[in-house]
C-alpha cells in the first residue's frame, strides 16, 4: 500500500534528489557556484514555462515579456526603496511584489485576448507583446527609457558596503535555488491534479476536452498566469545578479526561443524534462565554451539537431513513450 504510493511519486523524489545534489555541489565547490546557479536559473524558468507550454502545447514567443517584467519589477522596487529609505528586506519584498503584479496583470490581459487563438497563431501573435513593451519603454521614456535602470548603487546603499556581494550574489543565488525547487514542486502538483489532466487533455485534443467537460478557457488561463508569475519571480532574482537592465535585452525574443528549446529538449509536459533539458542545454554550452571557444555554437547546433532527430518528443518524453508498456516506467517517469 505504502510502497505503491511512494512509487507513484518517484519522479518527485528523483527531482528533489537532483536539487539536493545540485545544492550540495554548489556549497562544496564554490568555484562552480555561478555555473550551477545558471543551471538552476534555467531549470526554474523551464519548469515555470513547462506549466504552460509543456502541459497545454501552446507556444508563447512573447514569453520573455514576463521575465522582462520581473526584471523591471525588482529594479523599480529596489530603486524606490532606496529613494524612500526603506530597509533592504522591504526593498526585496517590494520588488518581488511589483514583479508579480506587473507580470500577472499583463499575462491576464494577454491571456484574455490571445488564448482564443490556437497553435502557431497564438505563438506568433504573442511576439508582438514583448516588442510593444520594449518600444513603449524606449519611446515614451517610462522607467528610465532606453537608459535602463542601474541598481548597483541602490543595492550598495540598501545593503551597505559589506552586504553588497550578499545582495548581488548570495541572495539571488539562494532565491533562484528556492524558486527552482518551488516551480518543480508546483509543476509536479499540477501534473498530478485535475488541472494537470485537464491541461494534458487540451494538448491532446482541445475540442474533445471541451466535450468531456473540461473548462478549457479557464484551465489554460490559470496555467498561463501561474507560469507567467513564476517566471517573473525568477526574473526579479536575476535583476539582483546583473544589476543593470535595458529594454532591448530584457525583452529579447531570443530568450523566449531559448526557454522553448530547453523545455522541448527535455520533453514538454513531463516533470523531469526541464531538469534534463536545462542540464544538457546549459552544461553543453558551458563546456563547449570552455573547450572550444569560438566554435561552441557550431558544435552546439549540430548536437541540438541530432537530439531533435533522435528524440522527437524530447528526451524524457521519448523515453516515456518508448517504455510506455511498462506500468512502472509510466509511474516513475512523469
Amino acid at each position, binding site marked *: 500500500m505504502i510502497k505503491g*504510493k511512494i512509487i507513484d511519486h518517484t519522479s518527485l523524489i528523483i527531482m*528533489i534528489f537532483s*536539487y539536493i545534489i545540485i*545544492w550540495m555541489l*554548489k*556549497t562544496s565547490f*564554490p*568555484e562552480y*557556484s*555561478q*555555473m550551477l546557479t*545558471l543551471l538552476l536559473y534555467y531549470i526554474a524558468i523551464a519548469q515555470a514555462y513547462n506549466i504552460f507550454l509543456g502541459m497545454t502545447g501552446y507556444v508563447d514567443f512573447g514569453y520573455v515579456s514576463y521575465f522582462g517584467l520581473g526584471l523591471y519589477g525588482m529594479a523599480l522596487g529596489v*530603486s524606490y526603496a*532606496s*529613494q524612500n529609505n526603506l530597509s533592504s528586506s522591504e526593498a526585496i519584498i517590494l520588488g518581488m511584489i511589483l514583479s508579480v503584479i506587473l507580470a500577472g496583470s499583463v499575462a491576464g490581459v494577454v491571456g484574455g485576448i490571445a488564448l482564443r487563438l490556437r497553435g502557431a497563431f497564438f505563438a506568433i501573435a504573442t511576439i508582438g507583446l514583448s516588442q510593444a513593451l520594449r*518600444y513603449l519603454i*524606449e*519611446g515614451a521614456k517610462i522607467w528610465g527609457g*532606453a*537608459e*535602463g535602470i*542601474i541598481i*548597483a*548603487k541602490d543595492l*550598495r546603499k540598501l545593503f551597505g*558596503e*559589506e552586504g*553588497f*556581494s*550578499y545582495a*548581488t*550574489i*548570495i*541572495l539571488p*543565488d*539562494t532565491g533562484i*535555488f*528556492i524558486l527552482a*525547487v518551488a516551480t518543480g*514542486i508546483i509543476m509536479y*502538483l499540477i501534473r*498530478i*491534479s*485535475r488541472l494537470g489532466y485537464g491541461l494534458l*487533455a487540451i494538448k491532446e485534443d482541445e475540442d474533445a476536452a471541451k466535450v468531456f467537460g473540461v473548462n478549457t478557457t479557464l484551465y489554460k488561463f490559470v496555467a498561463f498566469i501561474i507560469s507567467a508569475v513564476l517566471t517573473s519571480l525568477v526574473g526579479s532574482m536575476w535583476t539582483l*545578479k*546583473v*544589476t*543593470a537592465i*535595458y529594454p532591448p*535585452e530584457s525583452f529579447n525574443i531570443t530568450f523566449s526561443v531559448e526557454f522553448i528549446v530547453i523545455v522541448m529538449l527535455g520533453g514538454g509536459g513531463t516533470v523531469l524534462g526541464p531538469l534534463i533539458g536545462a542540464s544538457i542545454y546549459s552544461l553543453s*554550452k*558551458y563546456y563547449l*565554451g*570552455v573547450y572550444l*571557444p*569560438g566554435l*561552441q*555554437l557550431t558544435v552546439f547546433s549540430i548536437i541540438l539537431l541530432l537530439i531533435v532527430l533522435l528524440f522527437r518528443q524530447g528526451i524524457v518524453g521519448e523515453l516515456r513513450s518508448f517504455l510506455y508498456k511498462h506500468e512502472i516506467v*509510466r509511474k516513475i517517469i512523469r
Partner: protein
Amino acid sequence: MSSSQTSGKIFTPLTITLIIIMLVIGFVGGYYASAVSRPSAPAITYTYSVPYTSVATQTLYIERTIYQTLLTSPPATTPTTPKPTTPPPTLPSEIVIGMAVPLTGSQGEVGTAGFNGIKAAIKWVNERYGGVHLFGKTIPLRLVYYDDESSKDKVVQYTERLITVDKVHFLLSSYSSPLVFAQAPIAEKYNMLLINWGGASDLIHLQGYKMIVMVWTPASLYMTQAIDALLSVKKDPKIVLIYKDDEFNRMVAGGVRNYSKKLGLQIVYDKAYPTDIKDFTPYLTSIAPLKADALIVGSHFADGQLLTRQLADQEIDFGFIAMNIAPCYTDYYKAFGNLAEGIICPSHWEVGASYTPEIASKLGVEWFGPTEEEFVALYREIVKDPTARPPYHAASGAAAVLILVKAIEKAQSLDPMAVRKVLGEMHLITFFGEYKIDPVTGIQIAHKMILVQWQKGNLVVVWPPEVAKSKLVFPIPTWAEKKAGKQATP
C-alpha cells in the same frame, strides 16, 4: 489517456511531508551557504560616499560629477594604505590574466579586435620586454579566455570560472557596457582587479565599485572634441544630433548636449532612434529643411552605414559630419568609396596618431610599452594579415595589458589591492595615449579622444592640433560633388 493512478487531491500527507522537507533543506542550506560565503570585513575601506540620486535624476547627476571630476581636480580621497605586502616566498612561474570576451554575438567583431590587440600586447611583454619584472626576476604573462557570446549569462559564469577555477591573477573586462556591468559584481565579490578596456559607460564607475579601472575615455566625452573642432572652423554652428538609443550612444549624446549648453551652442534637432532601425528616411525628411551646419551621430556599425547611404541618396549636405564607430573602420570606405570622403570619426586612437616617447618626455610623463610601429607589426602577426589596420579597440585592449604590467612592477606585488592602489596614483603614457584615473571611481581622466577624417581614401588624424597630421576639411564636399569624384582635400 490512461485514467489517473493517483487521486485528484494535491495535498496528500506524502506530498506535504515532501514539500516541508524540501523547504527546510532549502532554507537551512541557503542560510548555511550565505553564512559560509558571506565575505569577512573587506581588506580596505574607502572613505568616500557617493551621493545617492534617484533613477530620474541619475543622468543629471552623472554629467555633473564627470565634469567636476574632470574640470576641477577632485578632493584627493585616496584609499587607505593596504597592509604592506611581503614578497611571496615562491613566485608563480607565470602571471595569469583572465578574460571573458565576446568573440561571437552582437559585439563579436569589436570583441575580436580587442582580443587580438590584447594578444599582441602580451606577445610584446613576453617576447620583446622579457616578461614582468618582479623581485629581480622576469615572469611571463599567460592569457586565459572564454567566448561569452555577448551574453550576460555567459559573462557572469565565465568571470567566476576565471577567478575560481583558473585562479587568474588579474582580470581584463569584456567588451560593451552591459557585459561589464554584469561581470562587475563578481569581480568585486572576489576582490579581483578588473581592467575595463571595453565598457565606455561612465555609469559603471559611479556604482561604488572599488576594483574597476578604466583605460579609455568615458562615453560622455566622445564627441566633445568634435564640437571643439567644429568651433575652430565655424562660428555659432547649427547642430543636428541623432543617436542610437542604447547605453553607450545615449551617454555620447548627453555629453554633446551638455557641452553645447555650456558653450551656448544651438542644437536644432535632437532625437534618438531604436537599435534595430532599418530606414532613416523619416528622420531625414525632418532634418533636411533645417539647413543645419553640422551633423553629429551617435551610432554603431550597421546603423552608421545605413545612415550614410541614405544621406547620400537624399543628398542632404552638411559641412561637418561626425559619426561614431562605423567610419573608423576600413569596411566603411570599402562600402562607400568616394562617398566616405570628409566623414569624421571620433576615435581613442588611430594608426598615425600615436603618442611617442618624445611626446612623453616633453610632457614629463613616464613612457611604457611598444611604439606604434611595434604594436601594429605585432597585431599584423597575430591576425596573419600583413595589411591589417588595428582599430582603436585593439589599442585599448593592448593598453590595458601594458598599464597592468607597469602597475604590477611598480607595486612589486601580485596582490590586487596593492596593484589597484598603484593604478590609482600612476600617470603613464603608452602608444595609446595618456593614462590617469580618478583614484576613487577608477574613471579615466587623462586619455584624450582624437578626430579622424576620411581624406583621399585615408583616415587622417585632424584633431587635436598637437597630434594632427592634416588640416580639418570644412566644409566637406557635397554629396553631389563626391558622386562626381571630388575628394576631401585640405
